[in-house]
């Protein structure tokens, strides 16, 4: 099929005089399509899902994507000839129809390493998801996956702490971490807010969390929140003998405000601060540097990602966002639950987890991973599963995600009929029982409910949790699944 498309098309004009005559050429004539191109180890490779306008040839559309995400403008410019212009042209080199979806095509595009500034996600994204996403000849375009060359990976510092060092600092090994988001999101005074944090942590959670839209509103200014929360954290730590934390959200109107809030969190002895994805790439990288200088774990709440990750035909896949965030340097990243209230096909979500935690990510089409990715010893991100999950799903969560994950039960802790501490106890007992059973060789996927029932015999809070939520599940069809191909691709 790819060959048939290629034969019907035109290729780059090699004669320089013809190539640079003023006027308009097809993108593929300008050199943005090269079916024989073999990507270099140092190239960045993007896989786009494109939907050309009716009548637009898919190869020309792919060439246009390559052009508009690198050097092209709509017309020929003679000033190209002052440069080693071929280096700067991204090259579309393969186009295939998306299996089963008429009108959509996968297009592979390679970018030379000279195109992107060292260690800058802002620069890389300005090219790759810049003008091209508004380009008229395409109805829609989505960046499905990206292969970042080791040479470019090594220009990033990555997570300031990483999941291995985070565990060492927290002294917590061999089990998922447990958290909860303080609820209600809005309206609690600092003093009331700290009460929820204390109850959750004393009950057995490792972390509590500010929600994404808790910053410094009239009902609770940020300093008040930080002061009360840290009293709760320290008191719970003394009550249990464990290191505890609460993600203090330092998201604010300006980066200067964020530094001020982060400094205060540090002074008070917090082990972790939090930012929202909406603060933008440069702020994220700045906060990552700050976290590195100050021995701080950096939690990333992916607020807003659904506006560009959710629709299958247009936007950026979350697996790409996750790769960029690992390079940019966050320690925690919300990556989906598969079984909770928010969007996510289980295999696709596992793909995001792999991107966060692998030393070397293997191409895995059913999980939506189109490329091998060598992470070059970059530290690993701890994924966070949060949103509509409860103790009754513990076996599914452990089976899907393994040990290196923060499981966050917000409603599932705070909404417990016997109170917040009881909710935390239920979650911790469910978790420890399941880890123990798995290690003993039990088949938790099938025996999970029975394991939980047996644990509930010595733990009445767990029994109450199972009675309250045991049957709750969110079974909706995912909008974002992998349309994986059975055929082998070039890379």
């Amino acid at each position, binding site marked *: 099929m790819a060959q048939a498309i290629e034969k019907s098309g035109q290729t780059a004009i090699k004669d320089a005089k013809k190539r640079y005559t003023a006027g308009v050429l097809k993108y593929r004539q300008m050199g943005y399509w090269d079916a024989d191109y073999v990507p270099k180890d140092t190239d960045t490779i993007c896989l786009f899902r494109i939907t050309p306008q009716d009548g637009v040839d898919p190869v020309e559309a792919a060439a246009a994507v390559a052009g508009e995400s690198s050097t092209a403008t709509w017309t020929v410019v003679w000033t190209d000839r002052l440069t080693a212009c071929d280096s700067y042209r991204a090259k579309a080199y393969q186009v295939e129809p998306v299996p089963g979806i008429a009108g959509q095509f996968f297009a592979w595009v390679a970018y030379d390493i000279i195109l992107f500034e060292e260690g800058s996600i802002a620069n890389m994204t300005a090219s790759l998801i810049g003008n091209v996403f508004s380009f008229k000849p395409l109805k829609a375009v989505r960046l499905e996956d990206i292969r970042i060359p080791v040479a470019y990976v090594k220009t990033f510092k990555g997570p300031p702490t990483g999941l*291995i*060092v985070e*565990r*060492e600092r927290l*002294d917590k*090994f*061999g*089990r998922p971490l447990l958290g909860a988001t303080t609820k209600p999101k809005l309206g609690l005074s600092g003093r009331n807010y700290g009460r929820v944090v204390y109850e959750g942590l*004393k*009950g*057995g959670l490792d972390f509590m969390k500010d929600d994404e839209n808790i910053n410094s509103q009239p009902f609770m200014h940020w*300093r008040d929140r930080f*002061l009360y929360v*840290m*009293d709760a954290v*320290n*008191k719970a*730590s*003394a*009550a*249990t*003998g*464990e*290191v505890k934390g609460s993600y203090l959200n330092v998201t604010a109107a300006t980066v200067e405000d964020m530094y001020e809030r982060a400094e205060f969190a540090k*002074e*008070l*002895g917090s082990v972790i601060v939090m930012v929202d994805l909406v603060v933008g790439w440069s702020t994220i990288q700045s906060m990552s540097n700050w976290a590195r200088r100050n021995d701080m774990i950096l939690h990333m709440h992916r607020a807003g990602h659904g506006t560009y990750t959710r629709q299958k035909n247009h936007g950026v896949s979350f697996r790409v966002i996750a790769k960029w965030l690992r390079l940019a340097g966050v320690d925690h990243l919300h990556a989906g639950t598969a079984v909770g209230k928010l969007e996510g096909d289980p295999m696709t979500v596992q793909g995001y987890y792999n991107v966060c935690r692998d*030393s070397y990510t293997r191409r895995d089409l059913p999980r939506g991973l189109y490329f091998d990715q060598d992470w070059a*010893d970059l530290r*690993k991100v701890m994924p966070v599963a949060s949103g509509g999950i409860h103790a009754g799903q513990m076996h599914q969560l452990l089976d899907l995600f393994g040990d290196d994950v923060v499981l966050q039960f917000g409603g599932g802790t705070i909404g417990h009929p016997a109170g917040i*501490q*009881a909710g*935390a*106890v239920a979650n*911790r*007992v469910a978790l*420890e*029982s399941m*880890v*123990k059973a798995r*290690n*003993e*060789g039990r088949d938790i996927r099938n025996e999970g409910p029975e394991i939980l029932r047996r*644990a509930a015999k*010595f*733990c009445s*809070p767990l029994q109450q949790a199972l009675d309250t939520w045991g049957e709750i599940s969110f079974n909706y069809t995912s909008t974002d699944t992998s349309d994986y191909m059975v055929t082998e691709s070039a890379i």
Partner: protein
Amino acid sequence: MITNPAGRITQGQFSFLPDLTDAEIALQVEYGLNKGYAWSVEYTDDPHPRNTYWEMFGMPMFDLRDAAGVMLELQNCRRTFPRHYIRLMAFDSTRGVESIAMSFMVNRPQHEPGFGLVRQESRGRSIRYTIHSYATDAPEGERDGD
């Protein structure tokens, strides 16, 4: 007396469960050995959450591939320090991990003294917090008198 819901210090993987029997401990050890981890026995009389370095009861057992051997070391440690905290730790030397993969308590004193929270009022409303381990109120060597 510790008044948290578990009624005791809750460090390690299984502190919220009833104490593991030796047979159950051996199953966990087996799991770690199958993963290629090296087990180590450590003990302390001061389980402060930031007391990272408990005493090693010998070196990590890198070449020991039999759970019974690890259990023997644990029994020796329990005999020597019956009223100390004892934990089993598994080390994973895989590149990119090179850290602890499992850790759980296998012995506790009958009476767990717990911790106090010392608040030092500081500038403005800021408070400096110190977690005080009551176990350290007595000199080392005299802490396990109960």
